[in-house]
């Protein structure tokens, strides 16, 4: 994953702003975007419910938020944004006709996603061993349900990334066959996007 070297070498001739070409295009399959919008709406409701529940008992939320491990939350943010960068590089290589090299970047994204799962799982184990559960408090009800709902999306995203990696290794992606890669990539970026709101909201905002 030689970032600097691939940056200049593999910018394809057609890789200009599509709007400059007068062609507007939704990357990937329309169905995945409908699915992504549905997921984003659910998370939006979750975020709204969290922040207005917090408004009703700021002291409780602040006290219990202070018990969260913000180091692990930040580490998971780093892992997810890095995996997103790796995925977009894989898509760019696919567009450049280097679908097999895209597999290397996808492998990096899978490693980061797996790292997220390990870190989040260890966080849950530490919290559950302290007797924390959904019924411990309003804060923990929201914290566990919101982060676990997101966690399930990470797991599904990893399954999708592994499928993309296998296809990329088989040389299935190229400039004229990007639909599957772009669709899976869009889903993974959605998982990252949700976490970029979730982390400051649940771990940092005081």
């Amino acid at each position, binding site marked *: 994953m030689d970032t600097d070297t691939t940056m200049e070498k593999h910018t394809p001739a057609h890789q200009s702003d599509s709007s400059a070409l007068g062609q507007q295009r939704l990357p990937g399959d329309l169905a995945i975007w409908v699915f992504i919008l549905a997921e984003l709406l659910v998370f939006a409701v979750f*975020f709204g419910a969290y922040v207005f529940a917090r408004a009703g008992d700021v002291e409780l939320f602040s006290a219990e938020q202070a018990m969260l491990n913000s180091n692990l939350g930040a580490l998971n943010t780093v892992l997810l944004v890095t995996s997103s960068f790796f*995925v977009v590089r894989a898509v760019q290589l696919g567009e450049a006709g280097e679908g097999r090299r895209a597999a290397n970047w996808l492998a990096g994204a899978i490693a980061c996603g797996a790292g997220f799962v390990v870190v989040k799982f260890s966080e849950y184990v530490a919290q559950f061993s302290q007797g924390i559960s959904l019924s411990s408090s309003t804060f923990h009800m929201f914290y566990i349900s919101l982060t676990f709902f997101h966690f399930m999306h990470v797991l599904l995203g990893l399954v999708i990334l592994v499928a993309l990696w296998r296809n990329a290794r088989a040389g299935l992606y190229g400039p004229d066959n990007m639909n599957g890669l772009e669709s899976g990539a869009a889903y993974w970026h959605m998982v990252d*996007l949700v976490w970029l709101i979730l982390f400051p909201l649940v771990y940092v905002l005081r």
Partner: protein
Amino acid sequence: MTHPTSTHPSAHGTPRRAFWIWIFLLASTVFAWAMAKTDMGGISIMALLMGLAFAKGAFVILDYMGIRGAPTLWKAITLGWLVVVCLVIVLGYLKGLPA
């Protein structure tokens, strides 16, 4: 190597742009982590955190998801989601401030 020509225009920008966006995402994550460690709060910190969250989300939507090259309706829907979510969080935060 000659790159194949295609009728499939890139919606994901250049590798260099993707790289610098990644650096921005990492730097703003470090900032948010520092805010968590220093236990700082208040309206100004909230505004800064949510402003950065909006900027990060917009970069992910427009560049990583490739919505920059999508029809205007899709830009409006996805960025509209981000605007609404950030506004709702700000409003909820303000509602929780002592009267």
